[in-house]
């Protein structure tokens, strides 16, 4: 049985396509920033904001909202684009990314954009903030808290010791209201993660730290939704979703190339990428006819 209707799948696929378009456009205009990570995490951000999250873009300070902590702040173009498409601020504002006076700082700063749950950039500190949020929630409401704390991490930042301090504490306090998603795209600035600092066997690592582990295809909407549903039903343990993703996903020339970790497309490269995404949108529509 399919857990998403065809309409919903098409809706998410087209939304993700629009968000990828906005990411490319904003990066080209900015002239600097990260390309591979944002494109690779677009399907997960889209599913989170348009299907999973309990939130209200018109009331970003709604107390009962779920919390999203983006730990690897450098992939913020996908966070900004998703938030804009979800209605937190005008999509047109994405063209101010990284410019003087913008609310969309090069790495997220909640003072400039208060609807962000935290500021980030320096790696390895997001999971512990999410642990603090989940812990605080359980202090107030006990194990039956109705809010979930989502922490989005990169694979590369698992090399930071601070992350594992948080992993241990999350298990110690049985934070089942904490759901971490790891963008397992296998690249970091200097190369492939397994060359720079091997992370495998990653799932075993988390299991041995008493986390519930789910490994998914990070571009399959049904997989993603199923994983979040499963994670929400776990009791007494935090969950980590290891999402296998393709860095640069959606634009052929950027896919799987670690060189695209930290640079933006030029105007010419952007034009080609946008044309490819337009074609892809047509394909998504025709497939569902």
């Amino acid at each position, binding site marked *: 049985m399919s857990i998403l209707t065809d309409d919903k799948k098409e809706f998410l696929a087209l939304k993700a396509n629009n968000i990828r378009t906005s990411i490319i456009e904003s990066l080209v205009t900015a002239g600097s920033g990260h390309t591979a990570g944002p494109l690779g995490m677009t399907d997960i951000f889209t599913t989170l904001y348009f299907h999973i999250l309990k939130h209200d873009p018109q009331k970003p300070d709604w107390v009962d909202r779920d*919390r999203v*902590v983006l730990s690897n702040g450098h992939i913020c173009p996908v966070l900004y684009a998703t938030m804009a498409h979800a209605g937190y601020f005008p999509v047109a504002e994405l063209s101010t990314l990284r410019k003087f006076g913008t609310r969309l700082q090069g790495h997220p*700063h*909640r*003072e400039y954009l208060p609807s962000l*749950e*935290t*500021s*980030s*950039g*320096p790696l*390895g*500190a997001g999971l*512990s*903030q*999410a*642990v*603090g*949020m*989940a*812990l*605080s*929630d359980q*202090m*107030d409401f006990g194990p039956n808290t109705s809010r979930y704390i989502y922490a989005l991490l990169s694979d590369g930042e698992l090399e930071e*010791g*601070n992350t594992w*301090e*948080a992993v*241990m*504490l999350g298990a110690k*306090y049985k934070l089942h209201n904490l759901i971490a998603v790891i963008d397992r795209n296998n690249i970091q600035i200097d190369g492939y993660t397994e060359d720079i600092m091997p992370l495998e066997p990653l799932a075993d690592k988390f299991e041995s730290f008493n986390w519930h582990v789910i490994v998914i295809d990070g571009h399959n909407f049904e997989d993603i939704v199923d994983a979040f549903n499963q994670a929400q039903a776990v009791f007494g343990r935090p969950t980590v979703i290891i999402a296998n993703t393709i860095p640069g996903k959606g634009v052929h020339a950027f896919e799987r190339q670690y060189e695209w970790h930290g640079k933006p497309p030029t105007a010419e490269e952007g034009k080609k990428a946008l044309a490819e995404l337009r074609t892809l949108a047509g394909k998504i529509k025709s497939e569902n006819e």
Partner: protein
Amino acid sequence: MLNPDQKLNSKIFDLQVEQVPIRDGFGQGLLELGAINEKVVALCADLVESTRMNLFADKYPERFVEVGVAEQNLVTVASGMAAMGKIPFTSSYAMFSPGRNWEQIRTTICYNDRPVKIVGSHAGISVGPDGGTHQAIEDIALMRVLPRMEVVVPADTVEARKATIALASTGKPAYIRLARNKSVVVTTDESPFTLGQANILINPDQSEVAIIACGQMVHRALLAAKKLQAEGIVVSVTNLHTIKPLDTETIEKVAREAGAVVTVEEHQVAGGMGSAVAEFLVSGRPVPMEIMGIKDLFGQSGEPAELLDHYGLAVADIVEAVKKIQKRKK
């Protein structure tokens, strides 16, 4: 000589004066906060008793988090809790927090504007026998350069209790620096204490040199002032318990009155309380100044008093510094 408004301990010049670790006052203050502010939570990195957080942890176990030996996690978890409306007090030794986790404090607490309180116990060389690895003498510098961070160095246990309670209601990040050893109780429950307002303890008027001190150096400054008085030299002593925000009004007043300033702290000369005072004075009306502290050295094992003496913070050293600066005035 004593400023009656300050209601100081009448026995401060007495050999039998009571001595209590400054960290005790923090433990007491936090315990009291537990009853008056339900948003207050406490986090510790495996030093519950040493930092006196045990009083709170025993009474309010449901509001206490033990993170283990993980100072980076200590402050980042606290940041997340503050994001949910809590007022977290985090404690460890100053050498480890803020010594080890500075960037996390910067990004997740100051940059995020979260009201997390960093409690650094066992600061200064007065840690004693543990030796140089455990003697944080750079922490004031580390914390006061951070935007939004408030920095408090209580002079004694009584002031530590008052400062702890006051810091819970500021809505800002803060660093409070505590010491391990027993030290003289200078103030009393009746002494005035307001964050950001320095206290002139003796000779507010007609002083020839203004001594500004913080932490347990306040008592040594008072002893030096008494000796100098006997030699006919009148000095004021100001307790600068809040280094940030800096009470520029009081500093300007005592500096202008005396025309020369000596600062005394248990910290590197570079970047500490004296630097903060100098940065202010130099931009307006500079006066000759002597900054007493550790001179670009690490500490070592020893008893607190002998270490303070060895590193140039003896009462006699303060007396000498005052006389030296008096000459520079002329």
